[in-house]
């Protein structure tokens, strides 16, 4: 059996690791999204949901470690790939033209990635490493009704959506799934997924900013 | 010199078997003591390199492109013949042999052609095993088509890219041996000369096309698989790099040249449309299955084809050859197109084209059927000319395509220099005076996969296996000569570009030694060639130096050899006063203006031996005897 080490040394292996970790992170994002959607039901429901999560205790801890590992794998692998790709073409073209599937999403993957890292750190500082006794609804409302932070969230979440618009399709190709029958669905599905994620997440800071009743 | 073809005795069908048994063998442990140089990496060169390396010989393979996957075999579209008889339509080894020797107008050696037909089946097996994706039927069996007027379906094909797929198969076998360390692959190397020591080929001198370094390479035997010389005409369907240099250098070192005037001119090519034109593109012969060849009846008629009424159209092939019509063989179709243009009935901006009209077929079968059959060819035509043959007739004109002549070889494929073997288009052996469609690929692979591996052993067994190196004085001498020639070229610093002079030579050859030849024209050419050569050596402009990548210098070296070689072609054409196959001497025609063969006086191979730069080459005859087929006059009426 081939070792993980040699898999990781290969370009295809690294891409598949990006794909697999990306897929799991996307699934996490989806659950996060569902959780956040509870906020639209009102502050009580949202607080209750947060309480329920906290009550899981050790399980949350395990989950967080797993998530952190996934993020680290995705980030470190991404950085290695980015550096290798830069090195693969030391002299650039004087005219650059895209005629294939190159999109805003694909072309900005490393940059949106960096934005997302910064965002996650800020996000964790604000909502994770904080006083857990404050009801979550108040925390959200309190922080995201501040325009600068809300704006930062909105921009960062747009980056997340852009990142997903390529990643959510690309991961299938990287693990070897490409079929004429499903390609159209996958491409559109990835786009829809990124729009959905972007819209729902962004709705929260927007509502916190403009709504008089959101989470109050 | 006595030319010994070394054709083994016995019945035709047993000759190859007997010969293989008679060939001396080299024991496997000793094979690794022998070094073999292969020049060229097209079908013949790549297949030979791979097969010889598999046997255990140490092979060094050279090509002038950046990669051995680019030999011009790659451009062959149609297919490859084999006598598999998978279609149960009456094919056999003997029939393939007969068709090939008749197609060559009875100017090839019976024994060679029969062997070619015999090994044709092994080639298909070998290629399939390598993963060549031949076309297949629904049930998974190999598909065949009939090609080039053959009455049986014996042609195997991979879309319109058969040459490419076969070459990539041979290339992959070659690269496998590179991995094993049995082949050293040297790309971007141009062979400048062959080194002959004590009458035996012992190595070559090459130029590294990147650094300009002159390099010497020693071996126990040298195999040339350097293709044809069609580019002597400047314009041809050959690749830009195809050249006669390797063969010509070998000739000047003592290898005899056979039938240099036998040049196949393919009738369906895209016409020339400007002086800047660098090459001609072939359109598959299959187009004549449904296209009707025509010109306007009145010379000088310049109306667009759609405005020429039916009664003013001259379907000259159908009128002249009622039974074969548009499907007459390549040489006949080509000559007739030239004849029409000579009468001023040619079309297009240059007047050097005829129409190939599909409208009747489109009306009969519907545009869908025609698109399905020829869509990719029409697409290719449209890419080049911006005209769509579905809406207006194609314009076609003959173009130089393949050279049947080449270095003379015996049944072992060895030239008159012991230890120098010649394979594929570079030799003269199998196609006589005219090559049939889908048999060039067959010959290249037959020579490389299934002939040379046996016959080279027979030679090597007769020489010492002591290690060869390039320290012998002869290597230095030949390398110095090659370097001196390059220096001389660079010192000219004249005014004309290499291409200008090459174009001039090409036009002269096309006019006087092309589709139709006559005494006066050939004599005139013979007088003019030295003048062009003189102009070249006085006035060619080659910028840059010899110690770098210098494409002008590369071309100049090749054109210098073409300028010498052209003279030999003309001499050969003059000496063969009969018409046969591609070689049409206007003095020798029937009352209906067809080629008239003269078996009594010309049933031979014309073999030329170099005799010094200032002397005429010495002429030798290899008589051709036909014990198994009866030479007949071709008729397509």
């Amino acid at each position, binding site marked *: *059996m*081939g*070792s993980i080490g*040699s*898999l990781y040394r*290969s*370009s295809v*292996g690294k*891409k598949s690791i990006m794909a697999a970790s990306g897929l799991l992170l996307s699934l996490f994002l989806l659950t996060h999204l569902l959780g956040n959607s509870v906020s639209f039901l009102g502050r009580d429901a949202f607080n209750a949901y947060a309480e329920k999560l906290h009550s899981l205790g050790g399980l949350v801890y395990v989950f967080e470690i797993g998530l952190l590992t996934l993020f680290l794998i995705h980030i470190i692998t991404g950085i290695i790939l980015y550096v290798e*790709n830069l090195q*693969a*073409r030391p002299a*650039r*073209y*004087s*005219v650059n*033209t895209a*005629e294939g*599937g*190159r999109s805003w999403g694909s*072309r900005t993957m490393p940059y949106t990635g960096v934005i997302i890292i910064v965002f996650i750190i800020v996000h964790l500082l604000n909502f994770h490493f904080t006083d857990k006794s404050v009801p979550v609804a108040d925390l959200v409302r309190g922080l995201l009704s501040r325009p600068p932070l809300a704006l930062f969230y909105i921009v960062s979440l747009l980056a997340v959506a852009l990142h997903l618009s390529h990643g959510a399709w*690309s991961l299938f*190709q*990287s*693990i070897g*799934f490409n079929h004429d029958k499903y390609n159209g669905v996958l491409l559109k599905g990835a786009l829809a997924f990124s729009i959905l994620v972007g819209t729902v997440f962004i709705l929260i800071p927007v509502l916190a900013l403009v709504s008089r009743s959101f989470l109050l | 010199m006595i030319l010994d073809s070394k054709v083994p005795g016995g019945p035709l069908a047993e000759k190859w078997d007997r010969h293989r048994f008679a060939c001396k063998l080299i024991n496997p442990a000793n094979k690794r003591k022998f070094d073999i140089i292969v020049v060229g990496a097209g079908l013949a060169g790549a297949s030979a390199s791979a097969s010889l390396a598999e046997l255990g010989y140490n092979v060094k393979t050279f090509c002038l*492109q950046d*990669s051995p*996957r*680019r030999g*011009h075999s790659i*451009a062959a579209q149609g297919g490859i013949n084999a006598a598999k008889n998978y279609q149960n339509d009456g094919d056999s080894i003997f029939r393939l042999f007969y068709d090939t020797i008749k197609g060559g107008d009875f100017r090839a050696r019976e024994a060679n052609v029969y062997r070619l037909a015999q090994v044709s089946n*092994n080639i298909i*097996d070998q*290629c*399939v*095993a*390598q993963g060549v*994706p031949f076309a*297949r*039927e629904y049930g998974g069996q190999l598909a065949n088509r009939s090609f080039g007027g053959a009455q049986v379906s014996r042609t195997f094909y991979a879309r319109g890219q058969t*040459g490419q*797929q076969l070459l990539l198969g041979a290339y992959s*076998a070659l*690269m*496998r041996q590179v*991995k094993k360390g049995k082949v050293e692959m040297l790309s971007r190397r141009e062979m400048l000369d062959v080194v002959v020591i004590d009458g035996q080929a012992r190595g070559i001198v090459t130029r590294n096309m990147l650094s300009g370094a002159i390099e010497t390479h020693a071996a126990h035997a040298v195999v040339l698989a350097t293709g044809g010389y069609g580019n002597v005409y400047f314009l041809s*369907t050959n*690749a830009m790099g195809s050249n006669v240099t390797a063969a010509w250098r070998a000739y000047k070192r003592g290898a005899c040249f056979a039938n240099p005037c036998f040049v196949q001119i393919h009738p369906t090519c895209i016409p020339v*449309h400007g002086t800047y034109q660098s*090459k001609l593109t072939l359109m598959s012969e299959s187009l004549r299955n449904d296209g009707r060849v025509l010109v306007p009846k009145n010379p000088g008629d310049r109306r667009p084809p759609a405005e020429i009424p039916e009664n003013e159209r001259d379907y000259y092939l159908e009128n002249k050859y009622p039974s074969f019509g548009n499907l007459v063989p390549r040489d006949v179709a080509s000559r007739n197109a030239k004849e029409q243009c000579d009468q001023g009935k040619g079309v297009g901006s240059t007047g050097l084209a005829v129409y190939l009209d599909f409208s009747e077929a489109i009306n009969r079968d519907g545009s869908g059927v025609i698109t399905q059959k020829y869509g990719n060819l029409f697409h290719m035509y449209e890419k*080049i000319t*911006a005209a769509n043959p579905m809406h207006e007739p194609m314009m076609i004109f003959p173009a130089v395509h393949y050279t049947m002549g080449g270095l003379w070889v015996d049944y072992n494929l060895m030239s008159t220099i012991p230890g120098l073997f010649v394979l594929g288009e570079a030799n003269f052996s199998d196609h006589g005076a005219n090559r049939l469609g889908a048999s060039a690929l067959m010959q290249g692979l037959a020579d490389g996969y*299934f002939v040379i591996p046996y016959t080279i052993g027979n030679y090597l067994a007769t020489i010492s296996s002591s290690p060869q190196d390039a320290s012998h004085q002869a290597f230095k001498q030949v390398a110095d000569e090659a370097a001196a020639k390059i220096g001389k070229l660079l010192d000219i610093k004249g005014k004309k*570009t290499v*291409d200008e002079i090459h174009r001039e030579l090409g036009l002269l050859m096309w006019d006087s030694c092309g589709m139709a030849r006559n005494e006066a024209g050939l004599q005139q050419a013979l007088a003019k060639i030295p003048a062009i050569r003189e102009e070249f050596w006085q006035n060619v*402009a080659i*910028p840059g130096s010899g110690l770098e*990548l210098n494409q*002008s210098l590369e071309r100049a070296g090749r054109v210098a050899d073409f300028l010498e070689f052209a003279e030999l072609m003309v001499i050969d054409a003059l000496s063969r006063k009969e018409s046969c196959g591609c070689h049409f001497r206007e003095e020798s025609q029937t009352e209906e203006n067809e080629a008239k063969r003269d078996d009594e006086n010309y049933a031979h191979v014309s073999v030329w031996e170099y005799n010094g730069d200032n002397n005429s080459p010495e002429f030798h005859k290899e008589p051709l005897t036909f014990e198994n087929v009866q030479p007949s006059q071709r008729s397509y009426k």
Partner: protein
Amino acid sequence: MSDIHLTLKIWRQEGPDAPGRLQTYASGPISTDMSFLEMLDVLNERLTGEGEEPVAFDHDCREGICGMCGAVVNGHPHGPEKETTLCQLHMRHFKDGDTLVIEPFRARAFRIEKDLVVDRSGLDKMITAGGFVSVNTGGAPDANAIPIPQKNAEEAMDAAACIGCGACVAACPNASAMLFVAAKVSHLSLLPQGHPERARRALDMVREMDELGFGNCSNERECEAACPKGISIRNIARLNREFLKAAILSDED
């Protein structure tokens, strides 16, 4: 037929280690019936006449099959026409007054030899690593002994149509050679003759690709758009499958 005039900005570089630059030339009158390479021929004839060194560029068959030609024209490998090699690109696709920036294929693994000529021997090295079926001459079974479904043969042919020009590498934002490797791995894994070595082949070819310094595929789909033979990135997905299967499940390493 009509003539157009173009401004040509061509990459000139004397040798692998020399600095390069874009040099501007007026094309002079160019017939729209010319191919792109004939346009360069015309320029070179003029430069030679003026005692200047002509532009070095690789080319051979000039009918779109040998794979030797190629340059990047205004950012497009082989120029802007789809499924067309540079030698088959005709000047009628350009307009009078256009400016064409002509650059060599760029990648760390493709060293520039001179002007537009690059070293693509890396492509050969990847084939050498495993792009073959290990069968010696002679002893092959009858060609019809193993039936191959027409669909598989056709799909294999789609992949085998690769001409090895390197445009996929030139087009890839990461200078990755995945489409090239994928085409060969697909061709041979779709045919029964290629099956015995399919795991070994995928591992070896990918390893060689990585060692040669080509970049990583990031699924930008620029390669298939630039490919003159229209080879699909479905083949890359197949390579990914073949590789992962081999790396995770097979005994090969």
